[in-house]
């Protein structure tokens, strides 16, 4: 852990915001998990329950016009960046009202208005595209920053290195944001990366600033991100941030799967203890700035919002087959 952002005193305002952001993501993801059994959402879904601290911290550190790209596990990133909830849920249901008009599904979210420029399930493929966004921003002299979300497995793809090299070469305003949750599907790090190696060190090999921190500490994520954003926006080049975290449920789908053998229940429970939501709640409480009533109210409102999104999505029409060829060419 090379980073030591100032984290002991922080405005209660941002604490509350991070908490609400995480809670909202958690509630949405749980609603998807619950609803999945109805078999009406059938595209693969990759939930971020347990990893909300990263998305929340990153989202809070960005301006609305900053941009983000992601991969298969992108619900949290989309929501934290301000993506339209209704459009996301409708997309997962394959509906015409979805953010991709049903053409994409869970693994292909987009909300240009919110600066969520796109997600795709080919591991690593959005990384250079995100770099390209920042390349254009630099050329066109905009002061936007781009975040490329990636899992730790994406750093094993060669394109990650090509992207970092190019970003470093041109000192582009891009942040490589790695959520290291220790697994790629069922494969632990031990079968994919050399023993004793840390992902952020590999990134640092390219001569860029690279740091590692606790992804389940939303405030730490936020602080480090603010700093990285400052560097990137000021033209001092890209930053790589690695946040250690853990997904609670199966890689793809709504269930828990610790029993099938690729990881232990004990490991899961250790991370469960480190729930980013509870951790922040505890901390806010300790610092005397936890507004329980406000949170209860927020949860109530958010649940209503989510229910609304689900029922709207269920009632929305499927795309008309006559539109099959829509958007083939611009």
């Amino acid at each position, binding site marked *: 852990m090379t980073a030591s952002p100032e984290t002991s005193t922080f405005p209660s305002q941002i604490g509350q915001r991070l908490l609400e952001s995480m809670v909202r993501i958690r509630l949405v993801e749980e609603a998807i998990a619950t609803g999945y059994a109805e078999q009406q959402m*059938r*595209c*693969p879904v990759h939930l971020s329950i347990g990893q909300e601290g990263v998305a929340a911290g990153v989202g809070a550190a960005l301006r609305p016009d900053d941009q983000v790209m992601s991969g298969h596990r992108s619900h949290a990133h989309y929501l934290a960046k301000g993506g339209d909830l209704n459009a996301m849920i409708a997309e997962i249901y*394959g*509906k*015409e009202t*979805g953010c*991709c008009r*049903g*053409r*994409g*599904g*869970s*693994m*292909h979210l987009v909300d240009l208005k919110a600066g969520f420029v796109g997600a*795709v*399930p*080919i*591991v*690593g493929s959005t990384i250079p595209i995100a770099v390209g966004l920042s390349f254009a921003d630099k050329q066109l002299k905009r002061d936007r920053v781009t975040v490329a979300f990636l899992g730790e*497995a*994406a750093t*094993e*793809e*060669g394109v990650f290195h090509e992207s970092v090299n190019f970003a470093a070469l041109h000192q582009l305003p891009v942040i490589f944001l790695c959520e290291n949750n220790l697994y*790629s*599907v*069922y*494969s632990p790090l031990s*079968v*994919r*990366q050399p023993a004793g190696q840390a992902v952020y060190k590999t990134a640092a090999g390219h001569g860029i600033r690279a740091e590692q921190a606790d992804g389940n500490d939303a405030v730490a994520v936020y602080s480090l991100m603010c700093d990285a954003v400052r560097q990137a926006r000021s033209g001092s080049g890209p930053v790589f941030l690695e946040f250690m975290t853990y997904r609670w449920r199966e890689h793809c789908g709504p269930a828990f799967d610790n029993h*099938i*053998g*690729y990881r232990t229940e004990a490991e899961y429970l250790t991370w469960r203890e480190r729930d980013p939501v509870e951790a922040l709640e505890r901390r806010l409480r300790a610092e005397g700035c936890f507004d329980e009533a406000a949170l209860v109210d927020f949860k109530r409102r958010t649940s209503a919002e989510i229910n609304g999104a689900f029922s709207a999505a269920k009632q929305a029409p*499927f*795309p*008309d*087959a006559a*539109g*099959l*060829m829509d958007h*083939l060419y611009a």
Partner: protein
Amino acid sequence: MREISYAEAIREGFSVALERDPRVVLLGLGVPDPKGFFGTTTGLQQRFGAERVMDMPCSENGMSGVVLGAAINGLRPVLNHQRLDFAILSMDPICTQAAKWHYMFGGAMKMPVVFRMIIGRGWGQGPQHSQCLQSWFAHIPGLKVVMPTTPHDAKGLLIAAIEDDNPVVFLEHRWLHHAKGHVPEGHYTVPIGPARVAKPGRDVTLVALSYMVAEALEAAKNLAKLGVDAEVIDLRSLRPLDSTLILESVRKTGRLVVADTGWALAGMSAEVLAVASEGAFGSLKAAPRRVCFPDCPTPTSPSLAAAYYPRSGDIVAAVRETLGLPADEADTAIPAGVELDKPNPAFTGPF
């Protein structure tokens, strides 16, 4: 006769190959995973050890190169991809390297390697988990390309591919995994090259590949009700391509419909039409037809997927055209209760 599923047949094929030849190794993301790579590798790591059945980093391009070097130096590796779409990252090692080394080094070395790729279909797979790019591989001399349809051929062609001294692209359709059929125990091979008459017939030739053979057989059943006796040819091997069998059939029936799992433009269906028009020109009595993906990326939504993935009814409709029969909308109507994002229950085999 013992019947097992396609997925089990693949696993048996691996078992036999690993057992007979210590040089055989299996690599791939999730090859030893608890779900057994869709049930096709279950138990193999336990039985043959982590050195012969192994996971790998998320590095498709690099790992494709690694298996080439391993093949040159005495192993017989199989590189497994859960989706063909991931293997697109490795077109250089597969097509520019593996396909050419034996030839361009004047025969100095052999390249016994298998690239196994699974193709997705159904709602949710969408634009990037269901690409059927068999024609890309079939286009490249130096490769062999197979696409088995039945459990029997899956096991026999897998063993043949592993025993072949050339790079073989082994394409497996996800919707065939559960299909059951007769599979002999132990070692046997199905030769790479010959196509197979899946159902003999006199009136029209249906050339199909992989999952579309199931749809073609269903179409043949429905055509029989119309009094049309269709011959169904299961290509099995795309390179080498069995032009002889295609031409024999077309010369007999005079009519041709090709059903592919992928796109039409410069796809395998184009090649089959080209072969027929070059080689059986005089015998063709009507314009041939192609049943393929519509010419757009694969949409995710079930309503669009239903309009997208070709089915037996589309084949029947195409056959009507070649026979000059009036079109019937009922052909392509979706039967009540059928969920198009799952394999048609009629196809759970045995074939």
